[in-house]
């Protein structure tokens, strides 16, 4: 009993940690790889290789548990209310794929070391490759269907990034976009299908879904589920009619083609079909849909492959064809077919990856992949040639190689009758035909590239690739041979574990031996081999001259249809809709916005009726009314003057702001009043700084004849404004005359002191109760300030605003006309008294800011107000003495203030993690300080310090960036003038 218990424990722990590690490791590696220097090829390879090897070791170590216990699991709660758990589950089938992904991943990393040139930015490559590895492993060991779809989409995205790795290349960009569009749409339909499955089964857990096969197959939604999931699987595995993206994906670097587009990612589709085989297969619909797609892909892919001139194109079509073979096997619905399918997935990955590597070596060493230009390479690279020959023989299904075994099983299954129909009758003929084509293109690849006369005028003189570049190929080809000769001793037990985990109750008897006697499948094999060889001999002459692509079908390209569809949908339709409904003019858009807001507010009023409350909270105070008479006059004045009298409008706006500020004070909100007052100051400074760059506009009634159209527009806008204003008045009145409902305000008031340690409840809410919101807000503030700064760095004013403003010109002329005056004297004399006062105010305002900050937790004040006050202190200096004078004496570095503020606030927030509390949990207590006595100290005050620093930085940055424009222009024009005078 003890041993059993220990085993269970060990089993559980193994599952949890090793599965999690398998997922996390590649992604962490991807992050690290992305930040290594761009020429660190070796470091990248060590990192990526170590991770792939680590995956391999983890997977291998898990095998005993899987072989004994069936599957290992790791469960983490994610969003349990949605039935979404982060469940990882590795059974035999997943294990086989995990081994494949990590082993070939390791070999591809090694190969890529020699393939990628020194100019390629390798961090991006290895980072994406590792992330892809993680996502692909995620697909195979997901124990939850939603999680599987998420990883599925991630592989599409990383495949997109890797195909487009050489993004200077148009075909890489187009291929990447096409692959993403096709597989991404498939991913979305897969998600829809999975959601339906979850609806039927009531769970997304893979084990529960696998146990509910009968329920799903008998459900009325079975056909939609099947179609949606198959769309996902067939697009991913590049099956007819969605195959066209795969040849275009060959613009990717060859290691990517070897890894993603032959060994792993394109297998995800057939993996999923095999995974869900016990649930979905066996019906008429499954047989027809999957069978037709598989057969078409198998035969047409092989046929197209014969006529490819690009080696990688040939291999891509061959991949489509082999995946079609697997799909056909899965369509049959017989357990033996599924066994053969799983076996062929592994075999295809081995020989196809090695062939892609060979293609990469050929490309690398000769500079071309065009079969017409290549020939006789055997004498230059005998080892590569031999390896490629063995691998293509496996691809063609020659005995004693792994491809032969699975192909025999395929033939045996094709001959069997499964569902009586034309498709079933055609299967053996299609199988022989496709295999004959496969033989033809395999011979073509070998004969065309390695034999014949020596090649002429190749970009490089060919020679053998370095040992380590050939090494991955050698291993893979060795695997083809060993599996092909002694299958039972090598892959046998592992395949059995995998097959059992998919088919568990229905696992059939099958034999992996090489020799089954003179059976029908063997005869079919011989026929295919002979027919393929004859076909190649007949076509040889034609192929050496013809264009890319098979005759007749050359014109009909899936790619072209895809592009036309894309243009129609994303360009023509979009342009049509834009031309009908869109506008590039702002005013109609704003009008629409106002209208929508109005309707949104008006609708409930209309449907529920307008009923002002009866509450009279206080009688109208004549002083308050008088203040607002001024405020309303200011607002109307600003609206009236904003076109021709900007300065006046700015001042009037300030007036309205001050009245708002007084209102806050009147209504017991001193915090708001303080903030409003200080923000009012900086806003005014900001607008004044901006005025200088706007065009002069003079009101001239005699020439500005107002057209009828303009008059009508004004009337319309005026009515809109009045209506909106009236509406807002009514709503506000209705709300204010009602007793407010009980809100969480009471809670905050009652707990501010006991939990937040502060008496100023507003400040406690900001920095403690709702600290996370404030953190978001200061982040926004920082982002906005940096955006302002960035926009102004490349600021180019309009030509008519470049020269000095009129007043400065007059002052300058005046100064220059008198020998006893320096330039700028007038302005400094003129502002002497205020500027001295302002300069002396600097320490005073700083003390004020410090005071506001320190008392903020208990009295009106706080980080925001103190920050704006501090910024005002700096701005006053700029205004008093000029930018140049200040910056000669003071380095403000607002960007550092912003960075410090944000980091400090975040660190304070994270500090609570150390004590095991959530982010931004604050702590407060009283500290006994000598001489001063008990001082309240809350960590929230530290957070407030971050807020303070950021507000200072952001405000100063925005104002200074704008103020700098004037001197930058002057400096630039002075430099230009000096250059001109020197030139003369």
């Amino acid at each position, binding site marked *: 009993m003890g041993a059993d218990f220990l085993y269970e424990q060990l089993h559980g722990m193994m599952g949890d940690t090793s599965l999690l590690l398998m997922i996390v490791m590649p992604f962490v590696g991807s992050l690290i790889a992305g930040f290594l220097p761009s020429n660190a090829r070796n470091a990248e390879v060590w990192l990526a290789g170590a991770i792939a090897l680590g995956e391999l070791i983890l997977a291998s170590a898990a095998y005993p548990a899987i072989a004994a216990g069936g599957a290992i699991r790791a469960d983490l709660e994610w969003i349990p209310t949605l039935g979404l758990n982060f469940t990882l589950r590795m059974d035999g089938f997943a294990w086989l794929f995990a081994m494949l992904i990590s082993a070939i991943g390791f070999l591809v990393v090694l190969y890529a070391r020699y393939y990628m040139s020194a100019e390629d930015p390798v961090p991006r490559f290895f980072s994406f490759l590792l992330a892809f590895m993680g996502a692909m492993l995620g697909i195979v060991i997901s124990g939850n269907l939603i999680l599987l779809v998420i990883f599925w989409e991630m592989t599409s995205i990383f495949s997109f990034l890797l195909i487009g790795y050489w993004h200077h290349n148009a075909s890489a960009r187009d291929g990447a976009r096409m692959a993403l569009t096709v597989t991404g749409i498939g991913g979305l339909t897969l998600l829809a299908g999975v959601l339906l499955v979850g609806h039927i089964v009531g769970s997304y857990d893979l084990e529960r879904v696998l146990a509910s096969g009968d329920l799903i197959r008998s459900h009325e939604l079975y056909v939609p589920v099947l179609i949606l999931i198959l769309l996902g699987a067939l697009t991913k595995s590049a099956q007819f009619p969605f195959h066209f993206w795969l040849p275009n994906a060959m613009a990717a670097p060859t290691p990517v083609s070897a890894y993603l587009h032959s060994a792993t990612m394109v297998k995800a589709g057939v993996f999923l079909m095999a995974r869900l085989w016990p649930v979905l297969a066996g019906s008429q619909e499954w047989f027809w849909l999957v069978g037709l797609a598989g057969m078409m892909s198998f035969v047409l892919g092989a046929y197209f492959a014969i006529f490819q001139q690009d080696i990688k194109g040939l291999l891509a079509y061959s991949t489509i064809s082999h995946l079609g073979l697997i799909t056909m096997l899965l369509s049959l619905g017989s357990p033996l077919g599924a066994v053969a399918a799983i076996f062929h997935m592994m075999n295809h990955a081995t020989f196809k990856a090695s062939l892609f590597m060979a293609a990469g070596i050929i490309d690398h060493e000769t500079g071309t992949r065009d079969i017409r230009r290549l020939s006789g390479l055997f004498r230059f690279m005998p080892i590569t040639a031999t390896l490629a020959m063995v691998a293509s023989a496996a691809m063609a299904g020659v005995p004693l190689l792994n491809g032969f075994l699975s192909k025999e099983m395929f033939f045996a299954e094709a001959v069997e009758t499964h569902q009586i129909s034309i498709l079933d009758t055609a299967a053996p003929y299609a199988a022989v035909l496709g295999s004959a084509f496969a033989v033809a293109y395999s011979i073509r690849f070998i004969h065309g590239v390695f034999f014949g006369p020596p090649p002429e005028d190749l970009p490089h003189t060919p020679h053998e690739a370095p040992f380590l570049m050939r090494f991955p190929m050698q291993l893979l080809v060795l695997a083809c041979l060993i599996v092909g000769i002694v299958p039972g001793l090598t892959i046998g037990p592992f395949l059995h574990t995998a097959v059992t985990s998919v088919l568990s109750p229905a696992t059939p008897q099958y034999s992996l031996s090489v020799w089954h006697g003179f059976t029908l499948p063997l005869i079919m094999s011989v026929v295919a081999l002979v027919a393929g060889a004859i076909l190649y001999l007949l076509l040889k002459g034609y192929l050496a001259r013809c264009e890319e692509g098979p005759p007749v079908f050359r014109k009909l390209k899936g790619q072209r249809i895809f592009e036309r569809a894309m243009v129609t949908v994303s360009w023509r339709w979009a342009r049509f809709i834009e031309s009908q409904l869109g506008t590039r003019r702002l005013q109609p858009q704003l009008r629409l916005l106002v209208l929508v807001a109005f309707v949104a507010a008006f609708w409930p009023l209309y449907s529920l009726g307008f009923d002002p409350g009866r509450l009279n909270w206080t009688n109208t105070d004549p002083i308050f009314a008088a203040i607002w008479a001024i405020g309303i006059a200011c607002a109307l004045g600003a609206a009236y003057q904003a*076109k021709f009298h900007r300065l006046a409008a700015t001042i009037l706006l300030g007036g309205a702001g001050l009245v708002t500020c007084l209102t806050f004070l009147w209504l*017991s909100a001193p915090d708001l009043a303080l903030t409003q007052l200080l923000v009012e100051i900086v806003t005014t400074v900001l607008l004044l700084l901006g005025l200088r760059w706007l065009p002069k506009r003079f009101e001239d009634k005699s020439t500005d004849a107002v057209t009828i159209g303009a008059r009508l527009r004004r009337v319309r806008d005026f009515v809109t404004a009045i209506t*909106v*204003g009236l509406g807002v*008045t009514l709503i506000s009145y209705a709300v204010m005359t009602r007793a407010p409902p009980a809100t969480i305000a009471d809670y905050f008031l009652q707990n501010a002191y006991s939990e937040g340690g502060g008496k100023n409840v507003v400040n406690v809410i900001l920095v403690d109760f709702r600290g996370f919101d404030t953190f978001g807000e200061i982040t926004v503030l920082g982002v906005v300030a940096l955006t302002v700064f960035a926009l102004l760095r490349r600021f180019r004013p309009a030509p008519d605003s470049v020269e000095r403003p009129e007043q400065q010109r007059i002052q300058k002329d005046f100064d220059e006309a008198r020998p006893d005056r320096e330039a700028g004297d007038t302005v400094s004399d003129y502002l002497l008294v205020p500027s001295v006062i302002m300069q002396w105010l600097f320490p005073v305002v700083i003390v004020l800011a410090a005071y506001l900050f320190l008392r903020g937790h208990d009295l009106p004040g706080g980080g925001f107000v103190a920050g704006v006050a501090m910024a005002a202190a700096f701005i006053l200096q700029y205004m008093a003495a000029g930018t140049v004078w200040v910056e000669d004496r003071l380095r403000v570095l607002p960007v550092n203030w912003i960075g410090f503020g944000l980091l400090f606030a975040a660190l304070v927030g994270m500090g609570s993690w150390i004590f095991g509390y959530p982010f931004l949990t604050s702590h407060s207590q009283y500290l006994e300080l000598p001489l001063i006595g008990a001082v309240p100290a809350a960590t929230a005050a530290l957070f407030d310090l971050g807020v303070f620093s950021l507000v200072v930085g952001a405000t100063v940055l925005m104002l200074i960036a704008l103020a700098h424009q004037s001197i930058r222009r002057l400096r630039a024009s002075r430099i230009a003038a000096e250059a001109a005078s020197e030139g003369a």
Partner: protein
Amino acid sequence: MELTLALAIGVLIGSGVWLLLRPRTFQVIIGLSLISYGVNLFIFSMGRLRVGAAPVLGSGGTVNPADYADPIPQALVLTAIVIGFATTALFLVVLLVSRGLTGSDHVDGREPN
């Protein structure tokens, strides 16, 4: 009192909307500022409005929420004021850059025909 405040909010927002629909960028920026005053006051008035209530907790004892000004609208509006300044600055700079690039201070970047 409530009528005064409601009218004030209405006028602020009405003038703001009028300016928002004008063609010149500076008008729009003044309009947005007026609207932000109006909206801030509107949000503020959604809470428990009090004249002469204590904004800061007294020392010790239990707290009767009815004695104090409503802190929630204040907290909301306080950050809104600061963010409002930031967006005003951003918009001002965008309009300056747009005027530099297009030579026009029309909101569409070109003078109407």
